[in-house]
């Protein structure tokens, strides 16, 4: 049997993001990287790129999110394909005008005269006492902002392929990555994953759990635990949030009849709420129990370790939610 060469030698999530960027930089001289401390690559996605591509293409910027995201908007309109590492995705709030009003609007407002092939990559989620301004998952804000694609890979495989999909897309794409998953191990498989795909793993028959990022990890761990209780959980990793794999979500609920939607962000108007609404509108007949949303209560992420753990859904919270919808 012939051995299929792994598409990436990266064994962990953050290096897989960096390898995805490197592939695109090798293929396309228009791909540039800039942002906060990118030659060091503090959060991982840009680590090592400066060694190969030099400071001309991997550019450390002042801490001026609005300007370096705005410059990337201009550069993208002007023909480059900038990848901006904003370090923590909470810092997108500083650049929100440039992301929402500019990157997310200009194609529409110009009647399609411009394309904005821009990637902004940032960590998202709580990873050990970074407190409220460095721990949020802004996916719902970004989705509601509109005009931006959003992906949130939770494995090296997803990271490698979605990063490349993001850079090759002609739209602005936000790539979120969880700081607690940077050194997560996993193989990069040869089958490419594209924007708009969901990853079903494991498949199951009793309950569908929808999650992204760290929540997808915890959902998979919960599925393993619950299998010992003879509960068959299907985990749908919604690693592409825009485009959202709505048909894959509905197909899973049609099969299992039960849904738990997990989100590492505030419950109100969350991605979990969107998925729950979609299921309620289009798969109501298949439901054998109410949809259960499991998310961060409407509070900021606190600092103290015990408080942080109290608000972010845990593996046990997910298992409990699954048991509850089975009772329902």
């Amino acid at each position: 049997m012939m051995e299929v060469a792994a598409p990436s030698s990266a064994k962990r999530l953050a290096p897989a993001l960096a390898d995805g960027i490197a592939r695109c930089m090798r293929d396309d001289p228009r791909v540039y990287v800039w942002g906060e401390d990118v030659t060091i690559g503090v959060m991982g996605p840009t680590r090592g790129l400066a060694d190969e591509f030099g400071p001309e293409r991997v550019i450390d910027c002042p801490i001026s999110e609005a300007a370096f995201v705005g410059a990337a908007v201009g550069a993208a309109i002007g023909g480059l394909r900038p990848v901006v590492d904003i370090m923590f995705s909470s810092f997108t709030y500083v650049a929100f005008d440039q992301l929402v009003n500019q990157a997310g609007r200009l194609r529409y407002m110009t009647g399609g005269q411009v394309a904005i092939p821009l990637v902004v990559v940032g960590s998202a989620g709580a990873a050990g006492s970074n407190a409220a301004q460095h721990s949020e998952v802004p996916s719902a804000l970004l989705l509601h902002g509109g005009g931006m694609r959003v992906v949130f890979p939770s494995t090296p495989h997803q990271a490698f392929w979605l990063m490349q999909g993001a850079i090759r897309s002609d739209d602005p794409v936000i790539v979120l990555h969880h700081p607690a998953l940077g050194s997560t191990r996993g193989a990069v498989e040869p089958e490419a994953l594209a924007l708009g795909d969901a990853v079903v793993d494991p498949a199951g028959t009793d309950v569908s759990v929808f999650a992204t990022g760290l929540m997808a990890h915890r959902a998979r761990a919960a599925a393993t635990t619950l299998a010992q209780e003879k509960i068959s959980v299907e985990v749908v990793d919604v690693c592409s949030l825009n485009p959202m794999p709505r048909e894959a979500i509905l197909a899973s609920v049609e099969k299992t009849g039960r849904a738990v939607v997990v989100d590492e962000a505030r419950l109100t108007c969350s991605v979990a709420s969107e998925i729950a609404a979609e299921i309620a509108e289009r798969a109501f007949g298949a439901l054998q129990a109410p949809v259960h949303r499991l998310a961060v209560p409407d509070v900021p992420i606190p600092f103290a370790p015990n408080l942080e753990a109290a608000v972010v859904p845990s593996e046990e919270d997910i298992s409990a939610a699954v048991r509850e919808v089975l009772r329902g």
Partner: protein
Amino acid sequence: MPLTPMASALETHGPEWLRTMVRIRLFEETLADLYKRGELVGVVHLSIGQEATAVGVCSGLRDRDQITSTHRGHHHMLARGLDPRRMFSEILGRAGGYCGGKGGSMHVSAPSEGAVGANGIVGGGIPHAVGLAFAARTLGRDAVAVAFFGDGAANQGVFFESLNLAALWRAPVVFVCENNGYTEFTPTDAVTAGESIVSRAAVFGIPARGVDGDEVAAVEQAAGEALELARAGGGPSFLECRTNRWRGHHEGEESYAKPYREPFAPADPIERLEQALRNAGHDVSGLRASIDAEERARIAEALAAAQAEPEPPVERAFADVFA
């Protein structure tokens, strides 16, 4: 005696500057009239009185160069050479507008004609010009970017950030602050600390100067030097063009805004150009009469054509969100 560069430029370009300034004036007066008659939708910010800055700066631009502009940007677009018919169409929300009727007065954009566009967010377009300049240099395009913005934008954080980034990158960009004295309804002096706006640019090590923004030849000369520096790899420059906004912040504001400024009668930049041409020995009255007749006809024709256009098809409301 040989002509000074300014006099020489006036000799070469004066009549064409006059034509463009008259075209802008007529275009804007036509909009004011349409607004009064209730024939415009949305908010319209007119540039009457600021023609010389736009024309002087755009005079030195080449096809590949790009400009970014503001909510008050019709004059920049017309000075860049955009078609008045497609501008009217856009402002009237018609299918044939530059943006297919999806941008409107504050957001006219025509990247293929060297105008990436106006922007409804004060200061929003400034970093785009830095990025456009960076991209142009990186792609070996031998082009520069010009960021037009107002005095109000000089109080935005992204203004300072963009100047810093442009200086660090030595980006081929020219920042043009069009200081018309009013930040919407508030006198700029009342909300702007420090010596001057131009002094803010100087601290970044960017060559910066103040110019009489109502003297087109002076603007053209200053902008020309800045463009030359950018083209030669010398990095960004900054111009503060001091001018006057003759109209309100937007048409129709008297319906709610109490009078907020003293009556004033600034010198007309068009008349100043005519005087300069007269001093240089031109038959200005003949020139102006023929320009007026031709531009009036052109604007009237452009408006009629735009008004005869259909509305955008409804399906356009759902298009162009993503590539």
